[in-house]
């Protein structure tokens, strides 16, 4: 018997060679077929790069689709719940898309690259749904995940780094805007977007120039505290920013088997993304019904007392001294920058109104023994971390 060698390598991002050089811990995981680093040096260190200087995250594995054709606007507008007619060329929109039952399939960002040409970015793959949505419309949908190398450059000094890289005019780039630059003869698209809730940018270019861009970026950022960051640091910062993650804070509707396990945009606190002025979009009828009759679930941002992260905890109400379980935590972290113990969770309505007091059941282990505390948690409205510098144009020099 012979053993055949099978090509099973995970895909390597075009930035891999540079990331591998910086890597001290060899902690990687799989992200849509690519190797993606959990952490390079230390999660805390990388987290503070995001909040105090600049963190660089490789988001090449992020799923990217190019949508073109005469009906592309009609197509996108029907696909997502928000009004895409308001998103002009050169702008980016955060959006969710739903099935006919008004349940969220995924969230993502849509880049209006130029008139009638869009890029849709999401964590998950969606070709099947996007193709179904194209039935009867004149659009062309192409997956371009591997055709584009992408970096997130996030943190207070990120603007200074890009300026130092020679991107003239980037000071005029507004939040959710995009601009094109010339980088060594190649188009470099820069969008002022991100997943950290801080001042930050995302850079998009042809993979052949990926390593050159990385080198130039780290050169330009050498005096601005630039650091490569992994998923662990990013996860901590996205919770602070109150952003949702698929498979954590919600399940993509098409991946659920049991009824009631998916969520509507209302149930995820995204009612601002649902525009009933549009006569038709996927999920409209179901969402209109839900708006009339009320939602079952409510997403909550929680400020939890104490310092023990409330991961996977049940959420309770307390009435007449008795606890009643009403939901559970989906994401939790200690926020070093806010000095708060924060969590995102899902509770049954009518619980979870802003200002409500809930109780989180936290289990923790001390020298093998398990202990439980009931920690008080207040439902808050605003993201935990949402600094002014994220929005200011031109951005501050830090």
């Amino acid at each position, binding site marked *: 018997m012979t053993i055949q060698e099978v090509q099973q390598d995970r895909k390597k991002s075009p930035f891999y060679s540079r990331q591998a050089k910086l890597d001290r811990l060899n902690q990687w995981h799989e992200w849509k077929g690519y190797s993606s680093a959990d952490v390079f040096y230390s999660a805390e260190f990388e987290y503070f790069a995001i909040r105090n200087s600049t963190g660089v995250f490789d988001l090449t594995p992020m799923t990217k689709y190019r949508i073109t054709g005469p009906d592309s606007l*009609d197509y996108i507008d029907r696909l997502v719940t928000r009004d895409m007619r308001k998103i002009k060329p050169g702008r980016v929109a955060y959006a969710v898309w739903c099935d*006919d039952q008004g349940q969220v399939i995924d969230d993502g960002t849509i880049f209006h690259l130029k008139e009638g040409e869009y890029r849709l970015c999401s964590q998950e793959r969606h070709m099947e749904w996007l193709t179904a949505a194209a039935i009867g419309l004149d659009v062309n949908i192409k997956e371009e995940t591997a055709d584009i190398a992408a970096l997130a450059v996030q943190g207070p000094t990120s603007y200074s780094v890009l300026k130092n890289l020679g991107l003239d005019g980037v000071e005029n780039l507004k939040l959710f805007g995009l601009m094109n630059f010339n980088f060594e003869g190649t188009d470099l698209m820069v969008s002022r977007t991100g997943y950290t809730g801080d001042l930050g940018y995302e850079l998009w270019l042809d993979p052949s120039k990926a390593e050159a861009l990385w080198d130039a970026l780290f050169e330009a950022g050498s005096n601005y505290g630039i650091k490569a960051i992994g998923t662990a640091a990013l996860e901590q910062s996205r919770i602070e920013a109150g952003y949702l993650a698929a498979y954590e804070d919600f399940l993509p509707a098409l991946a659920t088997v049991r009824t009631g396990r998916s969520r509507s945009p209302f149930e995820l606190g995204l009612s601002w993304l649902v525009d009933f002025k549009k006569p038709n979009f996927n999920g*409209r009828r179901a969402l209109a019904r839900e708006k009339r009759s009320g939602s079952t679930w409510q997403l909550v941002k929680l400020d939890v007392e104490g310092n023990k992260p409330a991961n996977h905890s049940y959420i309770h109400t307390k009435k007449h001294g008795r606890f009643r379980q009403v939901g559970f935590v989906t994401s939790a972290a200690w926020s070093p920058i806010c000095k708060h113990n924060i969590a995102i969770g899902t509770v049954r309505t009518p619980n979870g109104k802003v200002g409500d007091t809930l109780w989180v059941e936290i289990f923790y282990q001390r020298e093998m023994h398990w202990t439980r505390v009931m920690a008080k948690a207040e439902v808050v409205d605003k993201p935990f971390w949402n600094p002014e510098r994220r929005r200011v144009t031109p951005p501050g020099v830090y």
Partner: protein
Amino acid sequence: MTESYDAIVIGAGHNGLVCSALLAKAGKRVLVLEAKDQVGGAAITRSFATGYSVSACAHLLYQLQPKVRKDLGLKIEYAAENMETIALSPNGQHVRITGNRVEGVSDTDTDSYTAFYKRMTRFADLLQTYLNRPPARLANGTVKDLLTLARLGLDVRLLGKTEMREFLRLIGMNIYDELVERFESPLLRGAISLDAVLGTHLGPRSPNTILTYLYRLCGNHGKVSLPAGGMSSVTEALAHAARDNGATIRTGMPVKRIIIENGRAAGVETENGATFSSWLVVSNADPKSTIMNLVSPRNVETGFTRRVHNIRMHGNAAKLHLALDGLPTIEGLDKKDFGARMVIAPDENYVERAFNPAKYGEFSSNPVLEVTFPSFRDSSLAPSGKHVLSAIVQYAPYKLKGGWTDATRDEFMTAAIEKLAEYAPDLPQRVTASELLTPVDIEKEFRITGGHWHHGELTLDQFLFVRPVGGAAQYAMPLDGLYLCGAGAHPGGGISGAAGRNAARVILSREKAA
């Protein structure tokens, strides 16, 4: 100037007419728009050669629901009623079937057939009750829906322990296995196989062909009649009923699109540019052309669009019309037998083999046929002494490899005539004019996507609660103000009128509730 109506019905097919008549009867101002110059849809009589007329698509009446007749007080004149079916044998040893009687087979078969027919008609009666009601909603249903479902369960249980078990065993099964177990006579097995698969993309060994057989028996226990003057007399009678109740019918008005305003149906625009407004638009067109062409997917949601897009509705039956200068000779048949319905399906395997090529996009070179000589009983259809042959010929797949051309159509027609000549050798020289409608021709002439006479394959996954598609099985489409009333909706095709009647009842009861 836009004329305004309480309801606009797109298409004056028989279901559209039934629905219009009932809506008009309830006091609505109804406008019916028909693309052709003649009402009737696929139930019309038209000329195919000078002096010769024929029921151009559907040619026999066996499913018209008694409730439809009653509600509209229809009076239909018949040229022939309760026709005999003759399963032709090449050597003249034919088998004759009328109701629960069969001749030309062994005594065992005679008894078995009587028992089989009794059971089948009993099951068909059960089914018929539900064909004449809107299907219950399975999810998010009302108390009424739950009661309907409970009633269905109870009715099945009330068949008795043995019969309930039989019903549940048979309902999803193929007819082939049942026939082989039950009957000795190949001709009898062939004839019943043909009844089970007529008009479908199914062979006798395909699943749920017992269901399609039962479907055929719903209404009149499979008794076949020939309306005097052809099918148009049925649809003309329906059109009269609609007009008598105050509906306006306009022919030669093909609808281009359904006008959508603020996410709801608001009227229609015709191809010649006329617009009519109404908050209630009822489509007698098939679900695919209604949603894909008249509404446009951009006005409905993706999941629904995908389900409609995926409805299986590729027709597989062709229609053959021959003008004959006299009746042919068939061994073992008297002249009077030409008033019967004849089938060419020598045995169950023959029918299955005829279906085989269709699976791969080829037509049957040995087709199965359902043959009638309507002019024998109805002299209005042909010049004196001359005759018309009208036959359904299977299988002729809509998606023929290489597509249907004049050459392939001729080839298929030759195969059909050659098959007929095996039984009636002098037939070819008696043919003075001929016409063959393939599913593509049927699609074009009758505006049925795929040329499928049920507006969607009649299989369990497209039946009852999921017809035409899940989430839209109660006639109301997921677009406010838009309803379906044609064969694509529950229960299905055939000149039955059940879909049109159910749709009208749903529309009226919804209005009452609102």
